[in-house]
């Protein structure tokens, strides 16, 4: 059976973070109240800091949008893993115990492109906009990822 392999890069290095162009005081108080959220935001800032294009306005706006998304995540949900998509968007990924997956990509315009795969026949995808109220479709997708499967 022919097989193919995709190369995976080195993990991004932790080079510290910068809080340029974010709402420092407001965010600091939120992060102080939630160590796990603090780790998530630091991961996002590390991605931005290690980007060769970090002075690019679109990259900065994408980092800000990703942080806004992270800050609006329901506190009761597991912390996602974050990474950079090849197109520069920030991806938030959740993986359930039985292989369920849900992923949201955030771009500079606060557009949320999401997809979920909960079984071979149970899948979804769509687009939401990050506004004042956290999108219910995203909440449902994260919740389904961690539902117990018999």
């Amino acid at each position: 059976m022919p097989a193919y392999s995709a190369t995976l890069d080195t993990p991004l290095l932790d080079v510290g973070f910068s809080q340029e162009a974010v709402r420092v005081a407001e965010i600091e108080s939120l992060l102080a109240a939630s160590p796990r959220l603090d780790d998530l935001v630091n991961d996002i800032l590390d991605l931005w800091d290690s980007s060769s294009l970090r002075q690019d306005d679109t990259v900065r706006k994408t980092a800000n949008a990703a942080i806004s998304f992270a800050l609006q995540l329901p506190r009761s949900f597991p912390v996602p893993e974050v990474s950079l998509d090849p197109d520069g968007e920030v991806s938030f990924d959740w993986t359930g115990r039985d292989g369920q997956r849900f992923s949201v990509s955030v771009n500079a315009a606060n557009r949320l492109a999401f997809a979920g795969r909960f079984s071979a026949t149970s899948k979804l995808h769509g687009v939401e906009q990050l506004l004042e109220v956290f999108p219910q479709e995203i909440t449902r997708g994260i919740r389904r990822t961690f539902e117990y499967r018999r």
Partner: protein
Amino acid sequence: MNSKGPKPGAFLPAKAKAQISMMAIDGLDDIEIWPLGDVVGEVRGRPAVARADVSADGISGCGLSIVADPEPHPRHVNVTGWPASKEEQKLVALDLCDRAVLQRRPAN
């Protein structure tokens, strides 16, 4: 990648590209496969630390096609047929994650 397998972003096409690069590895041992990843990694300035192996059936089962492209290597292929929208691409990437086997490069 994470402990549960490759991340979906590892499979997504780059912006304005409708394909991803992979290497055909059938008939090769592990010791022969890793240098292929380094060929791809050379373009990005990063060595391969892991790889995600998928069968041809797994790729076509996601609605994608395999097209031989011997540059930069005779075993290089392009995986084409990606949908246009980001959210549909992400779903295809999740399907590939389900079909892929993560292999971590042994430390030497």
